[in-house]
């Protein structure tokens, strides 16, 4: 999911090659806390937690000033109307002067696996309605390891085009010249606090105890690594299945082409023979009906899987680089003389 630039420079934030107006995202501290709290309370055990982001667009920034969570899709509440919930919430928030403009949505993720059809569809519908909307992906497990992992993504204009036309065949994608790296673009995030919030932070620092768990420097990595690799392997398996499908399609297509070719040749030969014998040529038959080309498999899923694999690999590499650093630090501790 990272852009091409992010792959080359893993440390610096990706320079934005956005065509649209919004180049940065500015998040209020309050939103960060709310997202964390929402996952912590409601997200244990279930897949994802989602919510809506509110804010407004200022100059070239998208400011996110508030958010509210979405209830889970409960099984026992079949007649629950999501749209109504949203409308009521926004109306109420407007009464207390909170920005009620929809600017995006957020979702939590499990080990970085968020590139899915569902996400694509949701983001597409959001972006279709509101041009600057983004999806914030919050990774709680990575955050628990030491530092906040919050990323903002948006579909590239090319992908928007494709989704609009719903043409997911290989030819369509070839035309658009889209690769899995160009599907999502990451928008850099900046966290901003108002002065009052800063005062609050000072108060909190005085009153609260020192964090006693410095997870960031913990050396135990195997669990996380195993999980990530397992997910990666699953995806690679899926990918290989897709590839096999595509390969067989290609083979069938080429076989069919050959058959068509042979048939045409035979036809011509026969026609030539008939002509030489003076008989009327055989009627031209509709070739396309005889040799119906096999349907090309949709390539969108493959793209998504490729993107997901890319994301996993990125995460794994980040994780390993951090751990290497930590191991070297541990080594330094053991050799005080060096």
């Amino acid at each position, binding site marked *: 999911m990272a852009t091409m630039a992010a792959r080359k420079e893993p440390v610096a934030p990706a320079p934005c090659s956005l065509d649209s107006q919004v180049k940065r995202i500015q998040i209020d501290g309050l939103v960060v806390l709310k997202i964390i709290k929402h996952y912590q309370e409601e997200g244990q055990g279930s897949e994802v937690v989602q919510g809506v982001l509110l804010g407004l667009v200022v100059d070239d920034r998208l400011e996110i000033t508030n958010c509210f969570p979405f209830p889970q899709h409960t099984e026992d509440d079949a007649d629950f109307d999501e749209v109504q919930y949203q409308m009521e919430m926004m109306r109420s928030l407007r009464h207390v002067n909170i920005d009620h403009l929809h600017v995006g949505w957020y979702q939590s993720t499990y080990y970085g696996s968020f590139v899915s059809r569902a996400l694509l569809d949701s983001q597409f519908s959001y972006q279709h309605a509101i041009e600057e909307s983004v999806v914030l992906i919050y990774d709680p497990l990575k955050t628990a390891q030491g530092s906040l992992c919050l990323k903002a993504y948006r579909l590239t204009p090319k992908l928007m085009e494709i989704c609009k036309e719903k043409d997911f065949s290989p030819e369509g994608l070839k035309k658009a010249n889209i690769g899995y790296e160009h599907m999502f673009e990451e928008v850099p995030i900046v966290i901003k606090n108002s002065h009052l919030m*800063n005062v609050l932070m000072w*108060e*909190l620092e005085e009153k609260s105890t020192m964090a006693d768990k410095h997870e960031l420097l913990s050396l135990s990595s195997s669990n996380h690594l195993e999980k990530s690799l397992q997910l990666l392997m699953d995806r690679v398996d899926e990918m290989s299945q897709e590839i096999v499908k595509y390969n067989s399609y290609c083979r069938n297509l080429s076989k069919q082409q050959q058959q068509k070719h042979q048939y045409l040749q035979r036809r011509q030969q026969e026609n030539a023979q008939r002509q030489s014998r003076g008989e009327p040529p055989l009627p031209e038959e509709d070739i396309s009906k005889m040799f119906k080309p096999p349907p090309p498999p949709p390539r969108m899923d493959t793209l998504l899987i490729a993107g997901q694999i890319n994301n996993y690999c990125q995460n794994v*590499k980040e994780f390993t680089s951090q751990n290497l650093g930590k191991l070297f630090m541990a080594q330094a501790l053991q050799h005080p003389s060096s």
Partner: protein
Amino acid sequence: VLCSLHGLPLPSSGYSFHDIANVQIYMYTPRLYLQTMVQEQILSWYYGVWTLRGSSGNIQIFSIHSFYSTFLLLKMAVHGPFVKIHPVVLASIADSYERRNEGASRVIGTLLGTIDKHSVEVTNCFSVPHNESEDEVAVDMEFAKNMYELHKKVSPSEVIIGWYATGYDITEHSVLIHEYYSREAQNPIHLTVDTALQSNRMNIRAYASAQMGVPGKTVGVMFTPLTVKYVYYDTERIGVDLLQRTRASPTRTNGLTSDLAQVASAAGRIQEMLNTVLSYIEDVLSGKVMADNSVGRFLMDLVNKVPKISVEDFESMLNSNINDLLMVTYLANLTQAQIALNEKLVVL
């Protein structure tokens, strides 16, 4: 349970007095003591005795140790002396204060959370529009109910446990609002956050209310302060740490760091802490500071935490770990190259 009232005039209506000399005042049940409480002024507490001036002008004296026996009754009546607050709540309050309507001097709202046997935990809140003028106060109760319903859909375990107001004092209007909230929840907690920063601090206080006065005749409400503790989930703690870094930058902004930069900054922090410890040790050694045994024990623990392993063992462990990580990196790179290749081949 002691409080010093020397010379402090109380509001003559006797409705509320609070936080005098930062000591907790435990209340007393009216049926046992203080039958003539209302519209009296507490004159002084002197040698363990309350002195009160009655409305008729006579002076009554109650001894203080009679309060202790009601202490136990009190403990069951109120939730216990602790109120645990999550930083989300305070951030919300600060934000709604900033967005208040023109002319409103303070904001109020509902507190949601969970009640434990020993304490109350405040985990969420939302602001409620209200109008306040000199003589009357109007709160949009419909709105409050609606919002609570909506919130319940998301987190069904949260209940209304009280309300908050920005500002320093408890006013008469607070009493009215508190009454409304006591209909919604038992023993509602009242939280005040001083966003106007009087006394140059943002004072965050919590109160519980109690009845006082003459049963049958005029009764009043007294707000007793509770201890406020800040609790965090682990991830919240990390989020708050990140937010605190915005204080350092002049534009109050802060980007999210990535990768090795995080490890580097964590290492830097540990280095700072080590420096502090080292300077303390130097001071003790040179005699500037008295040595403290408990600190010494902690230092022993610290030094012992670095495991003593033989060099070869450690080398082999280190190498095997590094090999694992390198292998994984190699595989990840290989996979990425593979899918890139696949991409290009398809397009051909």
